[in-house]
């Protein structure tokens, strides 16, 4: 199934993907319950029965199933016609492996036709089961906010009977494909161990191919006539970990491109440069400005003269006035709509918005380029061959010579084009001049008339993404803490709040993010006043100003009083507190620098008896510094939390674990007060 360029990279609830899956699953379950009986009853095929007695190594008690065998045969008939046959069999080892009895075959209904989908179960005891395509279900993903409104992506689903521990389930199907690009990716490794996996490629006479292996040593194919076959054995399963790199970045896979004599023409590429040309061709003519677009540009820029202001006006228009709507059918998953359509409808997906941006900027004499990218850093890297690993499109704007503005941060110095500014018009919340954390140090394909260049996007300074929280508080003799808090947020820290508040449907609920924050640390609190700063002015820092009080914040303990100087807000995480050792690097979304200052004025007659020690932890990839001081009846707690590297290797996972434990400990630390004279 082809990947599409349709990502709406606005911060989404982290469950979005789960929601999609769950929604589909729910539908499937509901619908399968209504399905008529499956009367099939043939034996499983010989290729499955051959697996019944294969010896297996001992797997740990977390391995739900093992992929006993898989076989993908790709038979290239022509540049327009490819036949694929897939066979897969699993042995179910644990109850959790029952999910492998549900076979989901995704496909694009415009360019792929699935046929002969059949599944079988060989029970440990008793006769085989068979289920056919007609007994299954075909589904499309229902509309989920942020996903495609209309798409040709569908899935065929069959439920194989009795996928119980000890049983073998398997399936096979054929696909007739009309490929957009002569390229394929073989995911040799999976989430369960793989015993044996085959990939075969049959090419017409005179055709060539090129393969690249990622995260796995290169495997040489065996040749038999016109057929090439690659085989891998005994691969470990990929266990998903929190904040790990994308699976494409860690799974063993082979990317294969194939081409007729004389090259793939418009249907293939052997390097990024060629891929850029391919995409350029696809987008050709789409950025032509209609008279309405020209008029709009004139209107938007009439009142400003500086190029930067003109660019900002256009960027703001595309970010905010062009609604994100993805309608993607066939090649429409990659090819933008014409700018004139996007403009007149006032909607489009990421590549549409990027295309309209280009068109409008062109009208003020500024060149901009499309940049396909993947919103998960690590999905595409220079080590990879040119392949369809992107899911999003942004723009790179060639800044006019001599234009310098401190707000333009996401820039790159290009040897030929000069200064390029990356801009994501789909991201309505990140201000012009900056990019979100997920795009930083990520690789995008700069598409220019010269072709494509895979370039690393810049990393912005940590100071451009963070929270600066200052609280002036007073403790009274009853232990109640009250006062004012000013919170200034920039970068993704601002975007996340703006996004959360966009989804608030009642004014009274706008206070909820503050309630959530305080509730995380205070056993009781009352917010007595709150306001938002620059909610919609996305080029300005976002802020909260609020006043709260917390009864019983300081506690009497005998003749002493206990009070935690770190009043609220938490930086500690427990992602590495697992039984199993870490397998994959830990990825941060972006660089960040947060500072907290809590100044607490003590009631008259109180003095400090003991203070928590300062903390200075710097592990290179991140640092944390805190201190608690007393000055004239005021306890001042300050801390700085900074993420400096975007990825922590497995070899430093223990250091990161220690880092978070140090933070957790500091966050629990308590000051001991006493009344003077006692």
């Amino acid at each position, binding site marked *: 199934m082809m990947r599409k360029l349709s990502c709406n990279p606005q911060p989404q609830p982290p469950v979005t993907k789960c929601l999609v899956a769950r929604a589909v699953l729910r539908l499937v379950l509901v619908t399968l319950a209504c399905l008529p009986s499956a009367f099939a009853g043939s034996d499983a095929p010989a290729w499955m029965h051959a697996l019944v007695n294969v010896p297996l190594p001992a797997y740990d008690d977390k391995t739900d199933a093992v992929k006993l065998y898989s076989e993908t045969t790709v038979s290239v008939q022509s540049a327009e016609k490819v036949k694929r046959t897939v066979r897969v069999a699993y042995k179910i080892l644990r109850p959790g492996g029952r999910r492998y009895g549900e076979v989901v075959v995704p496909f694009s209904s415009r360019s792929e036709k699935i046929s002969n989908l059949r599944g079988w179960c060989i029970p440990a005891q008793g006769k085989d089961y068979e289920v056919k395509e007609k007994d299954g279900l075909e589904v*499309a993903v229902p509309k989920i906010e942020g996903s495609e409104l209309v798409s040709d992506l569908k899935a065929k689903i069959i439920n194989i009977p009795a996928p119980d521990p000890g049983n073998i389930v398997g399936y096979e199907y054929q696909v007739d494909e009309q490929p957009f690009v002569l390229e394929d990716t073989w995911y040799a490794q999976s989430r369960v161990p793989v015993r044996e996996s085959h990939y075969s490629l049959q090419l017409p006479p005179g055709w060539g191919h090129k393969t690249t292996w990622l995260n796995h040593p290169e495997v040489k194919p065996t040749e038999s006539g016109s057929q090439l076959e690659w085989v891998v054995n005994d691969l470990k399963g990929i266990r998903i970990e929190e904040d790990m790199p994308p699976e494409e970045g860690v799974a063993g896979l082979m990317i294969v491109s194939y081409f007729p004599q004389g090259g793939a023409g418009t249907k293939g590429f052997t390097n990024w440069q060629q891929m850029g040309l391919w995409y350029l061709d696809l987008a050709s003519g789409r950025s032509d400005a209609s008279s309405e677009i020209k008029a709009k540009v004139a209107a938007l820029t009439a009142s400003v003269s500086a190029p930067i202001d003109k660019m900002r006006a256009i960027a703001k228009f595309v970010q905010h006035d062009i609604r994100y709507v993805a309608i993607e059918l066939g090649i429409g998953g990659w090819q933008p709509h014409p700018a004139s359509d996007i403009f007149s409808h006032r909607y489009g997906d990421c590549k549409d918005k990027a295309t309209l941006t280009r068109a409008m900027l062109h009208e003020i004499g500024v060149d901009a380029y499309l940049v396909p990218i993947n919103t998960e850093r690590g999905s595409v890297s220079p080590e990879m061959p040119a392949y369809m690993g992107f899911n999003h499109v942004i723009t790179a704007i060639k800044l006019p010579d001599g234009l310098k503005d401190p707000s333009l941060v996401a820039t790159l110095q290009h040897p030929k084009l000069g200064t390029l500014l990356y801009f994501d018009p789909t991201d309505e919340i990140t201000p012009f001049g900056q990019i979100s954390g997920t795009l930083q140090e990520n690789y995008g394909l700069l598409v220019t008339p010269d072709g494509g260049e895979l370039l690393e996007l810049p990393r912005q300074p940590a100071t451009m993404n963070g929270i600066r929280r200052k609280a002036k508080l007073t403790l009274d003799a009853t232990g109640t803490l009250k006062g004012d808090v000013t919170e200034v947020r920039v970068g993704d820290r601002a975007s996340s709040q703006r996004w959360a508040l966009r989804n608030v449907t009642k004014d009274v609920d706008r206070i909820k993010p503050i*309630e959530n924050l305080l509730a995380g640390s205070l056993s009781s609190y009352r917010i007595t006043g709150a306001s938002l700063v620059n909610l919609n002015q996305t080029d300005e820092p976002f802020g909260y100003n609020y006043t709260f009080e917390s009864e019983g914040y300081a506690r009497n303990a005998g003749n002493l009083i206990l009070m935690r100087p770190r009043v609220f807000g938490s930086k500690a995480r427990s992602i590495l507190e697992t039984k199993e050792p870490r397998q994959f690097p830990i990825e941060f979304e972006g660089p960040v620098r947060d500072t907290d200052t809590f100044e607490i004025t003590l009631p008259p007659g109180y003095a400090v008896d*003991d203070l928590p020690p300062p903390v200075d932890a710097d592990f290179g990839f991140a640092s944390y510094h805190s201190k608690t001081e007393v000055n004239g009846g005021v306890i001042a707690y300050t801390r700085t939390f900074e993420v400096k590297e975007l990825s922590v290797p497995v070899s430093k996972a223990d250091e990161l674990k220690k880092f978070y*434990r140090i933070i957790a400990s500091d966050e629990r630390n308590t000051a001991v007060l006493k009344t003077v004279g006692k």
Partner: protein
Amino acid sequence: MPLRRLSSLSFAAAFAALTWAAILVPAAFGIGFQPVSPDELKMNAEQQAPGAPAIILYRQVDRDDNGRTSHQDDYVRIKILTEEGRKYADVEIEYRKDVENIVGIKARTIRPDGTIANFEGKAFDKTIAKAKGLRYLAKTFTLPDVQVGSIIEYYYTHDLEEGQLFDSHWILSEDLFTKSAKFSLKPYSGYYQSFSVRWTWQRLPPGTNPPKEASDHVVRLETQNIPAFQTEDFMPPENEMKSRVDFIYSEDQYEPDVDKFWRKTGKKLNDQMEGFVGKRKAMEQAVSQIVSPSDSPEQKARKIYARVQQIRNTSFEVRKTEQETKRNKEKEVANVEEIWKRGYGDGFHLTWLYLALARAAGLEAYGVWVSDRSNYFFDPRTMERRKLDANIVLVKISGKDVFCDPGAAFAPYALLPWNETYVDGLRLDKDGGTWIHVPPPASADARVERTAKLKLDETTGGLEGTLTIAFTGLEAWRRRLEERNEDEGERKKFLEDQVREFIPAAIEVDLSNKPDWSNSDPPLVAEFSLRVPGWASSAGRRALMPVGLFSAPEKHLFDHGNRVHPIYFDYTFQKVDDVTVALPLGWQVSSAPPAINQDGHVVTYTLKVDHDAGTLHWARKLNVDIILLDPKYYQALRNFYEGVRTGDDAQVILQPATATTSN
């Protein structure tokens, strides 16, 4: 051609969605786009929905159940108030292709300046799900040029298949505030055959007259200012909170009298039940293998209960495909004797088997139909038989009512699953039955007891030792139920994750025993080795240890100041903690928190910390005796939980012997 009534549960659920949004404008009868007022154009907020991203200005639903050209016209007009509100311009109308079609879609955007952008594109037919015999589709389209301040509107018609009759549901509450709405339904009036229709309603907006049939036999409702529906934690089932009207067709003659309706229904249900359980001789023979004549009534009731629960209960097995079911030759059973003979049955039938055996043992026992509280709150006045959807048995023992449901796997004797309690039920008899109330279980019947014996590490501030958790009653039941089809490894992980959910810190935990997952009555007891790194923190020369070791579940309860819906717990419960910490040699307790006894009548919390030479001990108890609480008591409940958190945050001051505790 006979008329078919499609109103089974699944169909009703599928078609609840059909009533969304809009107006149904049959080509011939549609109202078309209505004029837009200047006020609608210029409005930029709705006083009654402050902060709303959009509001429904007007909605109309007109249903004509004539049986031949039955159709429903939907119309909706939405004002976009914020950028976020523009998402309502993406429209997806789900329908079942095999029984209806969506026709006559018209849509447009009215820009803030009053100019109009008509939807001239194509509505895509998206296949949501397609299988043998059914096709769920969705007409999908998006409106052009939608900006903040725009008005979007669209209408369409559900063209319903000839010869079908569907229940109809007007769900008034939507995600958006509705300023004005009109609904109508022209009931089927007997072209093919006779059907009666009745309708119920709940939570109509203030000032709204209930739906009424007019002289033209059309039922109508007009309403204004319907609040946007929102969900909250610990709220009752959503459908109970929504403003709605439900129409129910019946092949039976309309019976307006509630008592008569249930008498008649009760007789039918009783006949069905007696027909199923009436195998006296076979049951007497069976029960003679289970009880002895000398057993007391309670002993008999318990023994029979235990025996029935030993029978394979197919309702709680991994769901099988029809092919597996066929191969296993699992046929429908006709009576309790067949179940007894073949040795398995579903939960429903096993409960009736218990009834039959109890009677055969000489016990006074009744079949009772109740409704599942997890889906809705049953009200007999709505006369909906389908909502009586769970069967239980009432046994009279020494004059006391004992409710049992052995068909509910892992439910202990005399303890019903929570969803079958706190509801009214129809106790069946030949005269039609009697309404009874099934009481909720006591909080002590859902208990979590955590006992920890730990040592404090003087160098790290960590705690290390053993933890024993006993889940009793409903707490054991729900865990056994959840993990019933898992293996030992998954169950171990499940229990260890439970401990992680209890403790508000990173921990290392390892299950060390083999809990009893099979039986219903005994508590589910799990033993662990436990490490809590850095639990005690430093304060210069002293060390401080919080006492809220198991406080994590209460940390984020009722964070928010505002509440709309009643507070709803599935069942009442208790949490009882007993923690003993051995201190390092020479360490002293400088100060311990005072005892807390917070009594909120229906909720109580106590905490008592004491210590002696080298040992610290605390006992914590949280008792919640609430199922449903009016929102006016929300603040009181929130205050109570703040008190719980305050107690849990209390710290013991420790004086190390020589060195200070480090982090």
